[in-house]
């Protein structure tokens, strides 16, 4: 007796070798039927003996390809049609799209072996890929994911490639971007407008040996590359980019080269080798043998392995550690078309390594920092992770758009229980980023075939994202407080709906009371929050002026501690101000003239970094806090007892007294390594003490940590440890960054909960 069953599978099931997998499975269990892609799912019909069907369905979930991610399997029985053969049908084009495009995947071991094998027809071919690896998101223009809808559409496959592409048993069966030297894209080197195609990789490598800077077209955009061991060229690159201190990432030939530079534990190694191939922050060895100016004031270095064939082939000749920094001027979005690169990188690079496979969607490298306890801090979510979807803990009653924040912007779309978060787009102060932001929102709407009817935005009236939301037609707006969004993001991606204690620590967010929040304890669920505690308020002299100048913040804290004696204390710490600065700052700090009040956690780190002379000039976002963390050494230096006061039913963590003890230690001559360690320990203990008090009061045992300050591994690990010891359940970000890159997800989660509550 034959039976037939129709299956609809959604999730990441396209472009990951799913259909050949199904085909092989059907053959194995002697089933007839078909499989095809639709924009929203993979559709399967199977027909055969009941045992065969059962085995098929078991294998389907148990042995799906590693890159696939099955979100939902809908199955229904159908009358048998007597179909004996199994076939792969052409994609079906209409319908709503939930099927989600896979992210770009780093070069797989099979393809890597092929391009290094002289016998293989793809020997040294830089655009080799298969269903297990290669470009996806960055080349897709529309769905369903077929070659015709990618930037590979213009390359007609040769017979050999076509055969592989059509053979269900081949690794390249329906590998949409497949290509070979006979039919695919080509690479060339361009120096001063002259194009050289022959031996271009060896010539590029030679230039790198000779201390030159090359712009290399990668998967999601251009990199600027140079030899990471040559100090002069690293300095030159800094000078050309106008980037004084911000660390550069390094791509190394292989794991051995990585280990020569950094100490790597198993977590770091597995992140490095993972299909997403992110930049992994790892601790530098004592003598890493690389240019000292790669990561000034930082004990860590961002490493990655070659993730495209082009990179791997370049490393066959080049130095084995190359700076690979985003190909842009200053903080602009990265260049991703050849013309744009010629225009914007012409003065930065000595040569271009171009190719003619267009990038449709730019996507930066992702950055992660694995921690020794197995958890990971995600600093930037982009290539390799986007557009993987995130499951929401509750359904969206309408299609949603979360527009994000201002810096490190991402946005997100959501429908039903699915959230699709964009790649890191950068700072919306810049017009190029704003343009790209608008265009990316459109592109994501096209891909998902969703037109959101509700947009969630930050409360801050001055964010460009807020204005964007307010400019949308026929869309209902939901305003979400910044720190509520942080905590909601953490709850949502951990699948939690219940109320928690949220420790939202960051630089600044608009508080509904007109002050600038940033060291906040919220009692929050997705729909709602109450501010139940915060850092001690201080003046933020000149608003963003203080964020740009850690010294201003140090003076503000000194004033909070010492009053009029602040200036003489500042002098003892070696903090210098011009007479004009002194006059203006004192007026601002004493009267609040043009200066809001803040409870910012980020600015506390700035003030401490400046007071200790660890960082008195901020040249990139987060620099003072990062350098303060890096200076700390040892675990058992004790801590400063931290008082917790009360104000209007809210706990106030006495961060001003904490600052005083930092200064007193400094005046006593204690070294910064110890003071910084004590400072971190004190804050961690302060958080736990506050949570304990609040648990007694509010009966909440779940603690969510969010906000950019939690990118500080020392603070994060210690706080988590102490909270766990005290019996709290602690959740942290696992899929999105704790910084403002996660805000869009939080906005979506809050909006979904608000709509849900209205029902």
């Amino acid at each position, binding site marked *: 007796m034959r039976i037939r069953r129709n299956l609809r599978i959604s999730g990441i099931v396209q472009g990951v070798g799913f259909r050949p997998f199904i085909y092989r499975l059907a053959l194995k269990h002697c089933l007839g039927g078909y499989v095809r892609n639709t924009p929203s799912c993979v559709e399967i019909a199977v027909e055969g003996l009941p045992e065969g069907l059962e085995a098929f369905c078991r294998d389907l979930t148990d042995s799906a390809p590693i890159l696939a991610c099955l979100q939902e399997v809908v199955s229904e029985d159908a009358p048998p049609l007597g179909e004996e053969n199994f076939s792969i049908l052409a994609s079906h084009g209409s319908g709503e799209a939930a099927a989600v495009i896979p992210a770009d995947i780093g070069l797989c071991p099979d393809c890597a072996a092929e391009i290094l094998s002289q016998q293989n027809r793809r020997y040294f071919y830089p655009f080799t890929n298969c269903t297990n690896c290669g470009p996806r998101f960055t080349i897709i223009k529309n769905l369903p994911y077929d070659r015709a809808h990618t930037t590979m559409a213009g390359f007609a496959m040769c017979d050999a490639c076509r055969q592989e592409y059509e053979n269900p048993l081949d690794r390249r069966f329906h590998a949409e971007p497949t290509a070979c030297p006979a039919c695919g894209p080509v690479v060339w080197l361009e120096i001063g407008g002259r194009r050289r195609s022959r031996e271009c990789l060896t010539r590029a490598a030679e230039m790198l040996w000779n201390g030159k800077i090359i712009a290399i077209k990668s998967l999601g955009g251009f990199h600027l590359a140079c030899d990471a061991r040559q100090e002069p060229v690293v300095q030159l690159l800094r000078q050309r980019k106008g980037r004084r201190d911000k660390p550069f990432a390094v791509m190394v030939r292989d794991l051995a080269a990585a280990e020569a530079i950094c100490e790597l534990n198993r977590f770091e190694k597995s992140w490095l080798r993972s299909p997403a191939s992110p930049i992994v922050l790892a601790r530098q060895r004592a003598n890493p043998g690389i240019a000292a100016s790669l990561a000034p004031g930082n004990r860590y270095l961002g490493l990655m392995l070659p993730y495209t064939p082009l990179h791997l082939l370049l490393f066959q000749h080049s130095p084995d550690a190359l700076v690979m920094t985003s190909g842009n001027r200053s903080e602009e979005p990265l260049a991703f078309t050849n013309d744009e690169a010629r225009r914007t990188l012409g003065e930065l690079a000595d040569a271009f390594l171009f190719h003619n496979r267009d990038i449709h969607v730019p996507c930066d490298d992702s950055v992660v920092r694995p921690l020794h306890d197995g958890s990971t801090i995600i600093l930037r979510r982009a290539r390799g992770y986007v557009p993987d979807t995130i499951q929401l803990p509750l359904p969206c009653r309408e299609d949603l758009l979360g527009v994000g924040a201002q810096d490190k912007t991402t946005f997100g779309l959501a429908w039903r229980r699915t959230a699709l978060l964009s790649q890191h787009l950068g700072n919306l102060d810049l017009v190029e980023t704003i343009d790209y932001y608008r265009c990316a929102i459109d592109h994501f709407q096209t891909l998902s075939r969703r037109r959101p009817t509700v947009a969630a935005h930050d409360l801050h009236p001055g964010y460009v994202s807020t204005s964007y939301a307010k400019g949308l037609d026929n869309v209902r707006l939901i305003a979400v407080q910044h720190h509520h969004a942080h905590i909601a993001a953490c709850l949502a991606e951990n699948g939690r709906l219940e109320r928690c204690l949220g420790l939202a620590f960051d630089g*600044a967010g608009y508080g509904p009371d007109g002050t600038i929040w940033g060291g906040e304890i919220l009692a929050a669920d997705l729909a709602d929050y109450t501010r139940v505690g915060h850092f001690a308020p201080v003046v933020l002299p*000149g608003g963003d002026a203080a964020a740009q100048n850690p010294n201003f913040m140090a003076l503000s804290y000194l004033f909070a501690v010492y009053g009029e004696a602040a200036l003489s204390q500042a002098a003892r710490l070696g903090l210098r101000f011009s007479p004009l600065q002194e006059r203006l700052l004192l007026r601002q700090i004493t009267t609040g003239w043009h200066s809001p009040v803040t409870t910012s956690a980020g600015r506390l780190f700035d003030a401490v970094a400046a007071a200790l002379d660890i960082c008195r000039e901020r040249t990139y976002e987060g620099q003072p806090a990062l350098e303060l963390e890096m200076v700390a050494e040892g675990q058992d230096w004790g801590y400063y007892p931290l008082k917790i006061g009360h104000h209007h039913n809210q706990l106030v963590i006495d961060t001003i007294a904490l600052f005083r003890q930092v200064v007193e230690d400094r005046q006593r001559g204690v070294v910064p390594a110890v003071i910084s360690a004590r400072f971190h320990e004190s804050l961690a203990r302060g958080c736990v003490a506050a949570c304990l008090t609040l648990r007694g009061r509010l009966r909440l045992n779940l603690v969510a940590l969010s906000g950019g300050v939690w990118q500080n591994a020392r603070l994060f690990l210690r706080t988590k440890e102490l909270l766990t010891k005290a019996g709290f359940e602690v959740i942290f970000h696992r899929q999105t960054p704790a910084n403002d890159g996660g805000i869009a997800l939080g906005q979506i989660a809050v909006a979904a909960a608000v709509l849900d509550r209205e029902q």
Partner: protein
Amino acid sequence: MKRILLSHGAGGQEMFALIEQVFQRSYGPSGVSRDDSAIIELAGGNLALTTDAYVVSPIFFPGGDIGRLAVAGTVNDLLTAGARPAVLAAAFILEEGFPLESLQAITDSMHQTAAEAEVNIVTGDTKVAPRRAADAVFITTTGLGAVLRPGLSGAAAKPGDKIIVTGSLGDHGIAVMLARENLLGSDNIRSDVAPLTEIVLRLLEAEVEVHALRDPTRGGIAATLNEIARQSQVAIEIEESRVPVRPEVAAACEVLGFDPFAVANEGKMVVIVAASDANRALGIVRDCRYGREAQLIGEVLPAPAGRVHCRTPYGAARLLEMPTGELLPRIC
């Protein structure tokens, strides 16, 4: 109930909203010129008419006083219409108890500034308000001039045009602000308040192809350029490194968290000029007493309409927004 806020008078977004939502609701959109002067046809000639009320604290500040401001401001507004300023009327509201000596100093200063600007103050009015019903002295000046070059307007900027500023930016706003707070030290921070008759008349006489003139007062060039970009439906790009800002002013802005481009000027003109005439215009301006530090700072682009940005020294383009009353920190 909605009430007037200080930001409604600051020359930024809030003020434009007020004009649209209150004044234009009564007068109609065509009743109010979006430029600083209105052009009227009278007795066979084209006349430019403008009026401005001056409220400044302190009334005497480094580089000037309310009298000089009241004359220069109105003269400059007439000049933006391509008119030769002819006559001014001045109305005073004085607070009971105001020292005569101070009034004399103000009127002397007005006379001197008028002479410099080649206008006559021909009529006036004086009212005295009871103590505390007014603050020291308010002056309203109305100016009339003959249009030499019709068609100058914030709506006349064209893609390709160059943008000149006649000198350093932010001096007036910072000087007055620090003077008011008693925060001026020995730094050389002074208001730039001055009538720009020489600059504008020489440009017009030389038949330079000027398309728009604007004096970037409240809201600074950020407000001015945004208005022009909106009125002309063009984009504007300026290059940060070319915009002259005095180091002392920049230093004060750095502490205050202000963008010097959003700070008021009272003796500066933004000149939008055809590219072919830009260098000649710059030469003429630099030859004038108040134009020695003039710079070509940017150009008009075709799109996107209404957007102004500023290229930083490393090439990134920062959005230059219409200033708002409240500066809220955004750095997270």
